[in-house]
């Protein structure tokens, strides 16, 4: 029997799930995350550590920066990527998505198509990085986990995120396509 025609293979690996299925499963794993790690899910925090490690690799030093001044932040930085749970979880997201794509036989490396995409990626990346640091997180840490933690900050983040996304859409249509 061909695995490709197996209905369980198709359900779990081949076909895309509905958004609502995703919502419920993400909720389940958010709950697992809070219950087992004592913190909700966050993604963009470790990126600042990655930046610090890269900066140190090219000879920079973040020792005097307020952001990394706490004992915990210093310990994380000196422990390195392989001892930072948040970094490992982010690596897991990449590999989990890779696994899902391969199991559906849908992996393809998609090259950058145009200069517009290069500029969009650079500009978008920088804006997200800076915004996430001063906004206490990204769509996961500040928005999803913030709101689910019954913090009003999550809703404020949501409002301005929506305004930003609306402006971003206008810019995208005008300059990046």
């Amino acid at each position, binding site marked *: 029997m061909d695995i490709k025609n197996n209905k369980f293979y198709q359900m779990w690996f081949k076909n895309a799930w509905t958004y609502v299925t995703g919502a419920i499963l993400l909720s389940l794993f958010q709950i697992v995350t809070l219950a087992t790690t004592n913190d909700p899910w966050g993604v963009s925090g470790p990126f600042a550590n990655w930046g610090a490690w890269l900066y140190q690799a090219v000879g920079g030093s973040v020792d005097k920066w307020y952001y990394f001044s706490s004992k915990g932040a210093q310990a994380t930085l000196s422990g390195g990527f392989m001892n930072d749970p948040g970094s490992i979880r982010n690596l897991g997201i990449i590999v989990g998505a890779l696994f899902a*794509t391969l199991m559906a036989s849908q992996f393809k490396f*998609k090259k950058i198509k145009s200069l517009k*995409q290069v500029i969009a990626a650079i500009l978008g990346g920088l804006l997200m990085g800076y915004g996430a640091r001063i906004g206490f997180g990204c769509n996961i840490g500040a928005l999803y986990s913030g709101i689910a933690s019954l913090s009003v900050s999550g809703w404020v983040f949501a409002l301005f995120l929506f305004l930003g996304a609306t402006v971003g859409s206008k810019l995208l249509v005008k300059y*990046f*396509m």
Partner: protein
Amino acid sequence: MAKEVTLDCMGEACPVPLIKTENALKKLTVGDMLIVQIDHSCAMKNVPEWARKEGHNVEIEEVDDGEWEIFIEKTK
């Protein structure tokens, strides 16, 4: 005679394929066929979803690993 138009959205990220599809479909007349070529797995979900909601006939074909063609027949 109904036309068949191909729209190349390979390498385009969301939401570009959807916007291009909307614009391309506007220029067609009823009965024409638009074939959208994509390799973005999210567009493979939101382009057909949008087109079906608009009431067009939609068919998706996986033409290669991670590449799809979305056939949209303009119905109105």
